[in-house]
């Protein structure tokens, strides 16, 4: 009893909903030949309203209307929907070539009226209508035919067929040079079949593919025809295959104003960037985590690998990338996190420039810059930290201890080398040496005339020396030897002075030379007197006193003569 109660309650709770009330009019074909019979249907959903027969606009009714009814109940998410479809079918034909319009069907539901679309029928000569293309075709459409480079747009591939497709066999995408495309429903396993009326003809439609695309270059880009192969049922046992190509889709791509900027990476949409750093103050060798997060909507797939301008004193590793984006019809949305690890190898205060990039803001049609602040990192020295591991051999020891004593301080001015004294001392021995050598050379290379002059100069000296011997003889009382010496001295003196031989020496000749030599008469007389005294002395002895006197006179005379000659 209790069970029955629950069941009744359950039944009562089921909502008995009805689908929308609609009226539609369709034809089997809107391009027919004259006198060809075609079908016209009025399809009414879920109603019990009055439906008026439309004006066929000159077409004649060959048969009908036949009515039929179908019911279907569907339960989606516990929601039960009942559909009742009422169909009236007419057979129509045109008698003449031309254009006919079947007016819309009016449905009146107690004051609330609905009118279906009017249908245009083109009637041509018999045999000129090919129906194949009309019955199965594909359309490639886009939501935007003109976009900016990098701006997302959606492309839809829709299949139209007169009969209900049984199964989907293959899909081949056409070439799309310069376009990045991403399937919006990559995990799709089943296709939903819908009914659509195109120009009055009723088609089964299937959206085979929806994709979001980004043009990657400016100018005109195109999606080449897509290919699809579907299977249809002819009857219960037989299937047939239909292979179809879509149209070519052309997209006009506009260049982004200011896209030549260096910082512009080609991003289009809305973006923001944030950063995190694990520490700003570390020791050498400590790892620092830097996280750069780029959040936004647009062509995020173009972001690629970003780079931090890390100083060379840091070891840098490739960032770990965490992609948290999803594909939607308006582009790729979400965030991408880049986790950098840098390790300082040298102490100091360093600046890692904050990451920045430019993007094109689609809303404002303007370039914008997203950036994070610079990272300023203070790196301290670490005791026992070796900069280069190869050098550890040395690092285990300490430096050598200081010197207790100094071998001597000096200043720059203390250098003896380079002073004038030094140059003088170095060069003087050589100069002195060369001076002596010069003198010596001079003496050795003497000429006859110079020799004569020298001899003449020496004459008096030689005579004086000789006279000393004479005087000594005199003192010892050797008068004869003294006299002889005196004569020799005198002769030698004149020989040297006049440069003549002994044979040329006579009293007269000497007196003549003396006269021409401008010697005073007094001296000449003195000479004669001495000469005579010597001549005399050779024959008769001279008194010792007189001899001494003569010697002295001779000495005086020679000195006098030497001055004059």
């Amino acid at each position, binding site marked *: 009893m209790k069970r029955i109660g629950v069941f009744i309650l359950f039944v009562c709770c089921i909502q008995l909903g009805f689908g929308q009330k609609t009226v539609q009019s369709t034809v089997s074909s809107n391009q027919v030949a004259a006198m060809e019979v075609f079908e016209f249907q009025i399809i009414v959903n879920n109603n019990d309203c009055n439906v008026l027969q439309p004006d066929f606009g000159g077409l004649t009714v060959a048969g009908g209307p036949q009515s039929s009814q179908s019911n279907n109940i569907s339960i989606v998410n516990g929601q039960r929907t009942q559909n009742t479809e009422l169909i009236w079918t007419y057979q129509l034909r045109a008698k003449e070539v031309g254009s006919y319009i079947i007016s819309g069907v009016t449905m009146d539901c107690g004051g609330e009226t609905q009118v279906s679309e009017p249908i245009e029928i083109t009637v041509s000569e018999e045999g000129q209508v090919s129906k194949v293309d009309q019955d199965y075709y594909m359309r490639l459409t886009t939501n935007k035919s003109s976009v900016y480079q990098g701006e997302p747009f959606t492309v839809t591939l829709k299949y139209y067929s007169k009969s209900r497709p049984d199964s989907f066999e293959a899909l081949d995408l056409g070439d799309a040079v310069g376009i990045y495309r991403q399937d919006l429903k990559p995990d799709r396993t089943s296709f939903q079949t819908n009914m659509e009326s195109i120009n009055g003809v009723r088609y089964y439609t299937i959206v085979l593919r929806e994709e979001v695309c980004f043009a990657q270059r400016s100018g005109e880009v195109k999606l080449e025809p897509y290919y699809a192969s579907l299977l249809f049922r002819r009857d219960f046992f037989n299937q047939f295959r239909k292979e179809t190509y879509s149209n070519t889709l052309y997209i006009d791509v506009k260049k982004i104003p200011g896209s030549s900027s260096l910082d512009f990476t080609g991003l289009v949409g809305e973006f923001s960037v944030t950063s995190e750093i694990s520490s700003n103050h570390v020791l050498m060798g400590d790892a620092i985590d830097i996280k750069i997060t780029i959040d936004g909507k647009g062509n995020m797939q173009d972001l690629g690998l970003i780079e931090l301008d890390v100083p060379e004193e840091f070891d840098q590793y490739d960032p770990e990338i965490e992609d948290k984006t999803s594909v939607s019809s308006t582009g790729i949305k979400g965030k991408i996190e880049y986790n950098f690890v840098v390790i300082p190898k040298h102490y100091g205060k360093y600046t890692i420039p904050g990451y920045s990039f430019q993007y094109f803001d689609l809303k404002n049609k303007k370039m914008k810059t997203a950036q994070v602040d610079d990272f300023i990192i203070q790196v301290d020295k670490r005791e026992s930290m070796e900069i280069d591991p190869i050098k550890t051999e040395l690092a285990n020891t300490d430096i050598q201890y200081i010197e207790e004593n100094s071998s001597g301080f000096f200043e720059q001015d203390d250098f003896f080398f380079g002073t004038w004294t*030094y140059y003088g001392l170095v060069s003087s021995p*050589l100069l002195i040496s060369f001076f002596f050598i010069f003198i010596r050379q001079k003496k050795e290379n003497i000429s006859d005339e110079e020799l004569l002059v020298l001899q003449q100069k020496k004459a008096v000296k030689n005579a004086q020396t000789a006279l000393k011997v004479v005087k000594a003889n005199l003192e010892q009382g050797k008068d004869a030897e003294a006299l002889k010496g005196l004569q020799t001295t005198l002769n030698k003196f004149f020989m040297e002075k006049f440069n003549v031989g002994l044979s040329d020496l006579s009293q007269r000749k000497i007196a003549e030379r003396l006269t021409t030599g401008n010697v005073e008469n007094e001296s000449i007389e003195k000479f004669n007197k001495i000469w005579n005294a010597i001549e005399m002395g050779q024959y008769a002895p001279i008194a010792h006193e007189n001899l001494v006197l003569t010697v002295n006179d001779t000495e005086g005379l020679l000195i006098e003569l030497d001055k004059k000659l």
Partner: protein
Amino acid sequence: MKVLFLFIAFIFTAATFAQDSSFVRGNEAYANSDFETALSEYTKVVGSEQMSTELYYNLGNTYFKLDQIGEAIWAYEKALKIDPSNQNAQFNLKFVNSKTYDDLDTAESGIVTWLKINLFSFSINFWAYLSILFAFILAIALYFFFTTKKQKVKNRSLSFSFGTLFLLVFMILLAYLNKSNIIDRAHAVIVTEFVEVRSSPSDTAPSGFKLHEGTKVDLLRSSDDWIEVGVNENTGWVEKTSIWEI
């Protein structure tokens, strides 16, 4: 006159005493790990334009202990400039260089280093006095050559003179090179943490590459506050404040 002489002698002694005592005080502070004081004492001696291998060597140690790598390298380079054969300075320079970032091939060829170590380690004045002695010997040899009549003596004195002349020129050249090596400032060391090497002497010029503390560079030319440096055939401009000339 005698008083004046004594006064001058006293002044010299006092100056020597002052620099010596600063040096000694620096050593004491260093021994007590008071590196700040050691630095200021050593700097006093450097400031008085006095130099010695040991002074710069100790200064380098002090800078190293104070964690000033660039300055330490500068000081060791200075010490080795005066005495290239100083092994402690060589060791410490190598040690500190291992803590720098830029690993550049700055080593000179083996023969140059060998010559520097063996010839520049004598003082310049040593070569100066020796050259004067050789000038005397040369003078005597030349005198013999020009005056003697004996062919044998002439030949010997000629070859002896040539030998002596060659040695004399070599010594003067060596002394000259050594002096210019000490006085000329052809190199420098980066003393800031790092420096941008720019293509022209301006803050806005593009940066070609980066050099880090302790890197030894060649000095090429200067313009106002900028100086052109060369490293491994690359050249560029850096600010004068970021380098210390060796």
